[in-house]
């Protein structure tokens, strides 16, 4: 056995032993100081061997965020991206293979029902009281947030840590910690459409025949369609997020009619397809996601995200919210690490990161700390940008003076008319949606 204090070429000086000692001292110092406002708060030595597996969709579970968390917290964070469908299936059929599950409201409902998540103690979430009340109380400035579909508030509370049913009302146990959300509407080319779009019915306007598009996800596409038909005054839905068979039939039959009349150029499946369709002028108006609008604008092509504020009980945005759920099998040190991780998430770095995509953080007060005042003014307050705005990776996106579509986040969020959902008649809806696809 070689003398460990001598390296293979006989150099003396820094021996392996002293190197290890020095490293341990440095780690201890780092643990004591923390790199962000007091993280980690539990002794780094205890948790440094832990690995948290965070699984979810690519626009919510971003590798860059995981890397930063690992850096600040001292333990390993593995982000795995799957699409929405694969993710929920994984949580339910292989719950032991995931630690932190990325859950939309309706997925939280499902996960609770299947008993794969554990209740999160609201007390242990540091920033809980700073969460926007739309999540914690279902209202903002006294106005109740619409609950068509499954709203994040509705999906938030359970009575006991192992309950399988959601609880209507505030309790101390959560199904998930909301971490990113947005309000979706229509994207359009202001130069090719010719007027400002504020109503969903423009998407099905025969004037844009062959130049419109919706997306190919049944549960979301059908709600976008519902918003269009309601806006055009063709039908009034009881709950766009939970339609009856008759409402589904009406919606799909109308969609088939529109398809046969040639209204839709395509139903897009991938993000970049939606960007492409708009940027190439193949469509002038379509269901779109916020970062896609931004991506079109980066190409110096005008694209606006329509501010479809509610009026006359019609219109409104379609909202969604993703949160972090704790899988049931987490205990002991790993559970402590998971709480650390969630608290880090809400402490602002992540909030600022997602804001630059055009998404929102549920805790704007902490996100604000990590954004420049100019950025915050642009993204959250809906005021003209005092200086050029960049995307999360530093690529310049908007020139100074541009106003964010839809105004301030308060404007947008209070105008959400329905939330992403899982309907009772989901199987029937899938069937009819496929009828639309083969038409």
């Amino acid at each position: 056995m070689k003398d460990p204090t001598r390296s293979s070429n006989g150099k003396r000086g820094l021996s392996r032993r002293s190197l290890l000692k020095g490293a341990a001292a440095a780690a201890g110092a780092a643990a004591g100081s923390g790199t962000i406002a007091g993280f980690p708060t539990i002794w780094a030595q205890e948790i440094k061997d832990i690995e948290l597996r965070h699984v979810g969709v690519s626009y919510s579970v971003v590798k860059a965020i995981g890397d930063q968390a690992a850096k600040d917290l001292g333990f390993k964070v593995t982000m795995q991206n799957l699409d929405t469908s694969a993710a929920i299936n994984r949580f339910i059929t292989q719950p032991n293979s995931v630690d932190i599950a990325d859950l939309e409201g309706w997925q939280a409902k499902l996960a609770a029902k299947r008993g794969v998540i554990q209740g999160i103690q609201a007390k242990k979430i540091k920033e809980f009281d700073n969460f926007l009340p739309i999540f914690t109380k279902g209202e903002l400035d006294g106005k109740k947030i619409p609950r068509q579909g499954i709203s994040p508030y509705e999906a938030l509370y359970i009575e006991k840590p192992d309950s399988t049913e959601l609880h209507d009302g505030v309790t101390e146990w959560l199904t998930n910690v909301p971490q990113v959300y947005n309000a979706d509407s229509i994207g359009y080319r202001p130069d090719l459409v010719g007027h400002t779009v504020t109503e969903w019915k423009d998407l099905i306007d025969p004037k844009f025949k062959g130049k419109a598009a919706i997306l190919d996800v049944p549960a979301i596409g059908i709600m976008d369609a519902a918003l269009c038909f309601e806006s055009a005054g063709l039908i009034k839905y009881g709950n766009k997020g939970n339609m009856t068979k008759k409402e589904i039939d009406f919606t799909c039959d109308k969609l088939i009619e529109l398809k046969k009349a040639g209204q839709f150029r395509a139903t897009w499946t991938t993000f970049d397809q939606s960007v492409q369709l708009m940027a190439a002028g193949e469509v002038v108006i379509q269901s779109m996601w916020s970062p896609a609008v931004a991506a079109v604008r980066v190409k110096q092509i005008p694209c606006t995200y329509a501010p479809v504020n509610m009026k006359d009980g019609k219109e409104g945005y379609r909202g969604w919210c993703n949160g972090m759920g704790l899988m049931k099998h987490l205990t002991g040190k790993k559970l402590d690490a998971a709480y650390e991780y969630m608290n880090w998430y809400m402490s602002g770095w992540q909030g600022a990161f997602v804001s630059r995509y055009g998404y929102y953080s549920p805790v704007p007060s902490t996100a604000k700390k990590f954004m420049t005042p100019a950025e915050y003014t642009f993204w959250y307050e809906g005021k003209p940008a005092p200086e050029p705005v960049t995307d999360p990776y530093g690529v310049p996106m908007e020139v100074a003076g541009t106003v964010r579509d839809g105004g301030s986040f308060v404007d947008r969020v209070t105008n959400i008319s329905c939330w992403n959902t899982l309907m009772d008649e989901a199987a029937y809806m899938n069937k009819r949606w496929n009828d639309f696809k083969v038409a």
Partner: protein
Amino acid sequence: MTVSRPLVGWLYISPLMLVLIPFFVLPILVVMVASVFETDGFGGLIPTFTLANYRNVLTSALTFNLYYETVKFTVLTWFFTLVLGFFIAYFLVFHVRSPLLAIGLFLICTVPFWTSNIIRMISWIPLLGKEGLINSALLRLGLIHEPLTFLLYSSFAVVVAYVHQLTIFMIVPIFNSMARIDKRVVEAAVDAGASRLDIMRLIVVPLSKSGIALGSIFVASIVMGDFFVTKVMSGGSSASVVGAFYEDISVLQYPGAAASAIVLTVILLAMVSLILRTVDIRKEITQ
């Protein structure tokens, strides 16, 4: 032989069974069981015995439409890959003189497959799109005045993508069959005064039958079992059988998806048996 024949057979087949049992037999049993259960709407399975799922699948017009779409793509893909594959294999076997060159040409055909299928799927857009290479080239040459829209997000695009991806699966088995053909037989036919067409009809095609059958099985299985190419390349204007149960799985409708999957498996098994009945591949090697 001190070891009995059947035992040797089983010894050799055991690794295959070692994979098939846990990764096909057991899971397909799980799926079969799930297909006769009911769902509580939230991904839970209620153990009962009901044929309602099968009834729904087999009696709905949607199923017929979906199979029609998928079979349409399968037949078109099969036809084009067969024609292309057959003549390319013929070229490589009979017209290329140096085997090294044949191998080299063949390997050149395989290089694109080192790039993941999904990347090539994405790259169809810059090739076939309105602002893509082909449209730009045609416009610049003055052959068209407006970009062709049918190139992308259409049935044409779906078939092109499939043929692009699957011709190699036809070339390899047919090449293998053709390479077996004893050139002396052909020489004899030539000496006897046979025309090129006769040689093709009476010698080459019959002797390549097993290669063609194999290639057809491969192409048909892959296209019928795929959802992703149709979804992306058709721009959502077409649906596919597997695409439909992908969506059912997205909302955790396991029994319905399971029933559809079993139906598809049975149909494909029947199809493959039909092909194998015309060309008994197994007989070719058993003694």
